């Protein structure tokens, strides 16, 4: 197994490297880097100073090296709008986005796997067919519109839940979180449900397909031949087999959850990275955009690597194939 870890690590580093080249190309080589890194309100003198200071009169390769060095040190420019290092802005907002994404993932998995299992065990029943139709709706409905409808129903008409913002937060290991307080939870519920909808539909469909396939396998019949209760047959034998692909996909989709949080954060005014990105795009605060891109790409690569490792841990056939018995 150590061999595979090293190989995956190297692959991830390669992807990061390629992405850094792309970002660099996008910012420095294609666009006018001065436009991107200097405030639109700057005057000629400032532009000249910035050009020299940023080393834009030096060859591209040298610039790339500087870019890399600075990025590694965590310096990705300063925000125009807030005049603080861009990285700091993003890191401040990251806990909010991560909390939202994790909550959404939990909802999708905790609801999705049982529902998908049910639909797979009884595909022709009313419940089974309803679940499947519901799942089609789940990934057809545009997320932002569902968010609006949720606000309309639960905030405006019923008045049960707040319609925007994060509410008061409490500190957990130095990180501000919402879920520990009742009011924070109330603020978290609608946006998390909104973000979860698409993934929920996906998990249901995956689990259902996996269940139907698993039930046809010989080991199910054999387990029944041993006299095991149906609960154990489904709950242990079938579940463990379908969990592996489901978990893998879910893990890989976590990255896209973070990206799609952009929409949910805008609808619910949730103060996360995504909302920051939209605001920055509208305000032409380009250093923040660049910083967001770098951080998110790194996050994705790390997540992919973690999922790969988790997969090899979960499936004993993969885990033990390196160490031949």
């Amino acid at each position, binding site marked *: 197994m150590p061999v595979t870890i090293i190989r995956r690590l190297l692959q991830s580093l390669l992807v990061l490297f390629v992405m850094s080249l792309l970002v660099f190309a996008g910012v420095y080589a294609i666009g006018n880097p001065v436009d991107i890194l200097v405030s639109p309100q700057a005057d000629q003198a400032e532009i000249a100073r910035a050009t020299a200071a940023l080393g834009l009169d030096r060859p591209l390769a040298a610039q790339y090296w500087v870019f890399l060095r600075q990025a590694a040190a965590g310096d990705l420019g300063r925000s125009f709008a807030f005049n603080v290092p861009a990285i700091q802005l993003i890191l401040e907002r990251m806990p909010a986005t991560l909390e939202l994404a994790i909550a959404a993932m939990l909802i999708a998995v905790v609801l999705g796997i049982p529902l998908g299992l049910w639909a797979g065990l009884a595909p022709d029943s009313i419940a089974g067919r309803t679940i499947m139709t519901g799942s089609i709706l789940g990934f057809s409905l545009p997320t932002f519109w569902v968010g609006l409808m949720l606000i309309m129903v639960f905030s405006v008409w019923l008045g049960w839940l707040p319609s925007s913002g994060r509410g008061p937060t409490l500190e957990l290991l130095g990180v501000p979180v919402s879920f520990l307080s009742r009011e924070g939870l109330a603020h978290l519920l609608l946006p998390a449900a909104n973000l979860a909808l698409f993934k929920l539909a996906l998990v249901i469909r995956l689990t259902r397909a996996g269940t139907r396939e698993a039930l046809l396998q010989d*080991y199910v*019949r*054999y387990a029944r031949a041993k*006299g*095991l209760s149906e609960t*154990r047959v489904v709950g242990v034998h079938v579940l463990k087999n379908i969990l592996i692909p489901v978990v893998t996909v879910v893990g890989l989709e976590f990255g896209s959850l973070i990206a799609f949080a952009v929409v949910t954060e805008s609808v619910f005014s949730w103060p996360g990275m995504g909302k920051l990105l939209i605001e920055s795009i509208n305000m032409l605060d380009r250093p923040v955009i660049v910083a967001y891109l770098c951080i998110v790409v790194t996050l994705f690569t790390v997540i992919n690597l973690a999922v790969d490792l988790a997969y090899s841990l979960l499936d*004993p056939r993969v885990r*033990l194939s390196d160490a031949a018995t």
Partner: protein
Amino acid sequence: MSATVIQVENLRTHFHTRQGVVRAVEDVSFSVAPGKIMGLVGESGSGKSVTGYSIMGLVDPPGRIVGGRILMHGRDLRTLPSGEMRKIRGKHIAMIFQDPMMTLNPVLRIDTQMIEAILAHQSVDRRVARDRAREALAQVGIPSPDERLRAYPHQFSGGMRQRVAIAIALLNRPELIIADEPTTALDVTIQGQILYQMQKLRRESGTALIWITHDLAVVSGLADDVCVMYAGRIVERGGVDAVLDTPLHPYTRGLIESVPSRSARGGPLPQIPGIAPSLLALPAGCSFRERCARADADCTAEPALQGAGDDRQVRCFHPHREPLATP
């Protein structure tokens, strides 16, 4: 103590498919005495596996048992509610399947799969169950059982996996084991080892055995009685020596004669002409009629199973009478 462990009477199992009704098992009757081994022989599609599943109550839809009785200790297993049947499976009747790679769950450890088989029928301490599992593995000849318990199925070879399956079958000391082609997927040498194990275990534990196979050679070395199945029906029954010496049904005779043997070297290998009929479209009358050299106008009626000497039965209008020509 009853004279038979299991008694099957007029079993009928049909599959209602879109293309029609498949009569997989039609009017099958036999019984097995305690400690005896019965060979259930037939080619693929003869209904032998489905017979085994029917006894266990594991026929998958669209299949259903539509007639007959399966008597064990005087109780008809067909009439049992599913909870009661579950208690019988794995405890009074155990089953071994053909391909242990597919029947052992690949993502669960061996000890998990053995211990759960014990705990499903008895509440004992897990450690006690584990000890019994270890003993069972040792009993079937698996070395270093402690290590093996913690392993996964894919880490075993085919022969070892089948031994594990046998061990699992024996865990709860069943009165009957149904083995569905357990050696078909294995090398001949491994097959020999498994057969040896089965004989040893039968001697030690007194379990009755139904051995489902297409291979007459296995049956000849192992079984006490044999039932030959063709197109869903039993066409011949009797003690194994008697049947192999003097096969009465033309099909049985054809089967035996078509096995290559050293003493018949050089001569042409006899074959049964044609192929087995589709169970969706069985010919009227005797289902072997179209392949039988002895068939005539009588055979358009359906033959019934008739006695033919001590403890033998045959389903044929024109059975053979003479023993096989000894080479």
